[in-house]
C-alpha cells in the first residue's frame, strides 16, 4: 500500500510525503513526489504535517479506576491528540507490579486499538508502590514494561532508590523519578508562596522537588547510570538539572504543558481544576520552564494526563484530587506556544517525538527514509473549546475547560495505517 500526502505544510514549507507500508519512503518539496500511479493521494493543503507524538507520562486508570478513564478511552484521546504512543504509569488498582497486570494492560490496548496508539506500560519501581521492596523488574520488562517509576508515591529512602536504579540498569530500564520530598510540607495543597499565604493553604516549597532531583542526579553520577526526572515544575529544579548536565550526568527531564501555560495564580478562587502534583509554581518558574524547553535543558514534554471524575474535583480544594487531563489538549496548548513564538515547530517535534523516542528507546519518526510511518495532519486554524462534547477522555478535569484553543488533528496514521 502506497500513500502520498500531498501539499502539507512542514516546518513552514509545503511538502509531499511518500509512505509505503509502515515506513516513510521520502519527504520532498510539494509537487515533486515520486508517487506511482496506484498511490492513494491525500490532499493535505492547509494542514500541518507532524510526526506522531510520544507521551512518556499518562495515567489511564485501568485496571481499577475505570470510572475516571480506561485504556480504550485514553487511547482514543491520545489518537485525537496526535499521540502515536503513550507510556502509562503504574498507579492502577492493582498496581502494575506484576507481569499479569502488564499483560492485561497490553491486551486491553490491542483489543480496543489494534493499530495504535501504542501502549507502553511503566513498571512500578516497588511492590504496591509502597516504597518498601523492589518490584520484580525483570518479569515486568519481559511482559512489556519499557521503564519503571514510583510516580505518585515519592520514595524517601535513598538506599532503596539506589538499589532500584542499579538493578534496573542491568535490564536496560530507565528510572523515572517523581521528585518530591515526602516529609517537607506533607499535606500540601499548592505551591508555597504569596498566593498560598493569602489563600490560607498549606504550601509545598520548590525545594521539595529540587532537593530530590539533586539527590537523584548525584546518585546517577555516582552509579554512572541514567535517570529521568518527571514533570519538573520549579525553576530551582532546572538549576539542579543544569548542574548535573554540565557535569556530564545522564539526566533527562520532562515538563508538562500546564506548567508552561499556568502558574499558582490559577488557584485563586480555590479552583480545584488547577490542583495538580507537583503544584503549579510562580510566574517566574513558568518563565524559566519556557526557556528550558526552548534551549533543551528540559528534554521532553509529557502530559501527566491524570483524569478524575467530576465529583472528585467538586468540593473544597483540600479534598479535591490532584491532576489535570492532558491528552486532548496538549497539542493545542503547545501550539499556542508556537503562535506566541516561544517555540517553533521543530521544537515541538524534538520535545514530543525525537527526544522521548531516544530516551525511552521507542521508535520515532524523523521523516527520513525507513522511519516508522507515524504522523498526523493538523489544522492549526480550527478553533475548539474543551468541554464534554469535544473531549475524548472520560474525564474533563482541565483548567482549560471552556477556553478557546487552536488546532485539531484532522487525520492520523500509525505504522502507515490511518486511525483517524
Amino acid at each position, binding site marked *: 500500500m502506497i500513500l502520498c500526502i500531498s501539499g502539507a505544510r512542514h516546518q513552514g514549507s509545503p511538502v509531499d510525503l511518500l509512505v509505503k507500508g509502515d515506513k516513510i519512503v521520502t519527504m520532498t518539496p510539494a509537487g515533486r513526489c515520486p508517487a506511482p500511479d496506484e498511490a492513494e493521494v491525500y490532499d493535505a493543503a492547509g494542514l500541518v504535517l507532524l510526526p506522531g507524538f510520544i507521551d512518556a507520562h499518562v495515567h489511564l486508570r485501568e485496571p481499577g479506576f475505570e470510572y475516571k478513564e480506561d485504556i480504550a478511552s485514553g487511547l482514543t484521546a491520545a489518537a485525537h491528540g496526535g499521540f502515536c504512543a503513550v507510556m502509562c504509569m503504574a498507579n492502577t488498582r492493582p498496581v502494575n507490579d506484576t507481569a499479569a497486570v502488564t499483560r492485561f494492560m497490553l491486551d486491553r490496548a490491542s483489543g480496543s486499538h489494534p493499530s495504535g496508539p501504542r501502549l507502553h506500560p511503566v513498571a512500578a519501581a516497588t511492590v504496591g508502590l509502597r516504597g518498601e521492596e523492589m518490584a520484580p523488574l525483570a518479569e515486568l520488562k519481559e511482559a512489556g514494561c519499557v521503564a519503571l517509576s514510583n510516580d505518585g508515591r515519592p520514595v524517601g529512602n535513598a538506599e532503596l532508590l539506589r538499589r532500584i536504579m542499579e538493578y534496573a540498569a542491568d535490564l536496560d530500564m530507565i528510572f523515572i523519578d517523581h521528585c518530591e520530598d515526602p516529609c517537607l510540607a506533607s499535606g500540601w495543597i499548592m505551591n508555597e508562596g504569596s498566593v498560598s499565604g493569602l489563600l490560607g493553604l498549606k504550601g509545598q516549597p520548590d525545594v521539595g522537588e529540587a532537593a530530590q532531583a539533586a539527590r537523584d542526579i548525584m546518585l546517577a553520577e555516582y552509579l554512572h547510570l541514567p535517570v529521568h526526572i518527571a514533570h519538573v515544575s520549579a525553576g530551582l529544579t532546572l538549576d539542579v538539572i543544569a548542574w548535573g548536565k554540565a557535569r556530564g550526568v545522564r539526566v533527562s527531564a520532562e515538563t508538562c504543558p500546564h506548567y508552561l501555560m499556568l502558574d499558582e495564580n490559577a488557584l485563586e478562587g480555590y479552583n480545584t481544576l488547577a490542583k495538580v502534583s507537583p503544584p503549579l509554581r510562580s510566574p517566574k518558574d513558568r518563565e524559566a520552564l519556557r526557556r528550558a524547553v526552548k534551549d533543551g535543558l528540559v528534554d521532553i514534554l509529557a502530559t501527566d494526563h491524570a483524569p478524575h471524575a467530576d465529583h472528585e474535583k467538586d468540593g473544597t480544594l*483540600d479534598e479535591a484530587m490532584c491532576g489535570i487531563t492532558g491528552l486532548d489538549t496538549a497539542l493545542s496548548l503547545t501550539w499556542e506556544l508556537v503562535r506566541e513564538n516561544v517555540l517553533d515547530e521543530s521544537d515541538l517535534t524534538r520535545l514530543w517525538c525525537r527526544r522521548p523516542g531516544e530516551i525511552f528507546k521507542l521508535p520515532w519518526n524523523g521523516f527520513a527514509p525507513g522511519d516508522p510511518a507515524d504522523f498526523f495532519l493538523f489544522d492549526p486554524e480550527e478553533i475548539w473549546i474543551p468541554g464534554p462534547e469535544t473531549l475524548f477522555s472520560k474525564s474533563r478535569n482541565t483548567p482549560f475547560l471552556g477556553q478557546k484553543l487552536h488546532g485539531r488533528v484532522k487525520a492520523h496514521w500509525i505504522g502507515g495505517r490511518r486511525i483517524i
Partner: protein
Amino acid sequence: MNADNRYFWPHKDLLDVTQLNGEDTLHLLDLAARFQEVNRRPVKKVPTLKGKTVVLFFVEDSTRTKTSFDVAAKRLSADTHPLSKSGSSLNKRESLKDTALTLQAMGPDVIVMRHASSGAAEYLARTLDCSIVNGGDGWHAHPTQALLDCFSLRQAWQGRFADRTLLILGDIAHSRVARSNVHLLTMLGTRVRLCAPRTLLPAGVENWPAEAYSDLNQAVRGVDAVMCLRLQLERQQAGLLPDLAEYSRRFCLTANHLKSAKPEAKVLHPGPLNRGLEIANDVADAPASLVLDQVSSGVATRMAILYLFATRRDGETL
C-alpha cells in the same frame, strides 16, 4: 426598630472583608452601633427579621461564634437552625455539596458556615443561591470576627483608625482572624504589625501590608492595641515550636510589654484564651482588655450582618 435600608447592599455573600470597601464597612459598623442600643434595652428583641430563616452550618467545632450568631438572629426574631458536623450527614460521608444542596432546599435566607477547609465558604457560595456568611474557613478568612474587632476598636479609638498601630501577636500563619484583620484594618488606614516566630508566619508575608517582627519587645513599642491570637496546641506537635513554655517566654503578652505601648493601648483576643500561654492572666482581666467587649460587639455586628444579608432582596418583586 427600623434599620436604614436606603444603603444599597451590593453583596450576595460575605466571604471575606476583601470584598468590602470603606463605605460598606462603615455602613455596617454604623448599623451595628444601632443594634447595640437594642442590646442595652431591657427587652432585647425586635421583629426586624421575623419570618426569615438562618441556618447555622458549623462543620468545625465552635461555641462562641455559633452562639453569637444564634443570639444575634434571635434578637432580630429570625428562626435559627443549627447544624453541626456530628448532627449532619457529613459524618455519613455525604459530600459538602449534597449537604449544602439539602440545606438550600429548605429555603433559608442566610447560611452561616464554619468549615475547616480554606475556601469552603466560597465553594458554598458558588454552589448555592442563598446568602452565605463565612463564619470562618480554614486558615483563610473570618470576616465577621474582623468586623467585630473593628467595631470594638472604633469605639476604643473614638472612631479614628488612621494614625493608629495594631499589633497582631501569635500564630499568624494558621489564623483566619489575622488574615481578615490585616486586610480590614489596613483598608481603614491603620498600620498593622505582626509578631510571631518565623515558623508561624505565613509564606509571602513580606508582600503583606504589614511589618513582621520576631521580637515582642520591639513589636509592641508605641502600638495603640495588641490583638493576641490563640495558639493551637497542635502547632507544637507539628514541629513548628520547641515547647509551650519557651513559646510563652517569648510571645506571651505581659503587663511589662504593655508599658512600652501607648498608655491607653487596648488588648484584644478572639478567644478562647490560653491564659499564661499567649496572654498573661492579669492582662486578660485588666481594664485595657477588650475581650468581653468583643463578645458583645460580636452580637451587635452579627445582627447588622444578618440584617444586611437577610433583607438584601426584600425590595425585589416576585
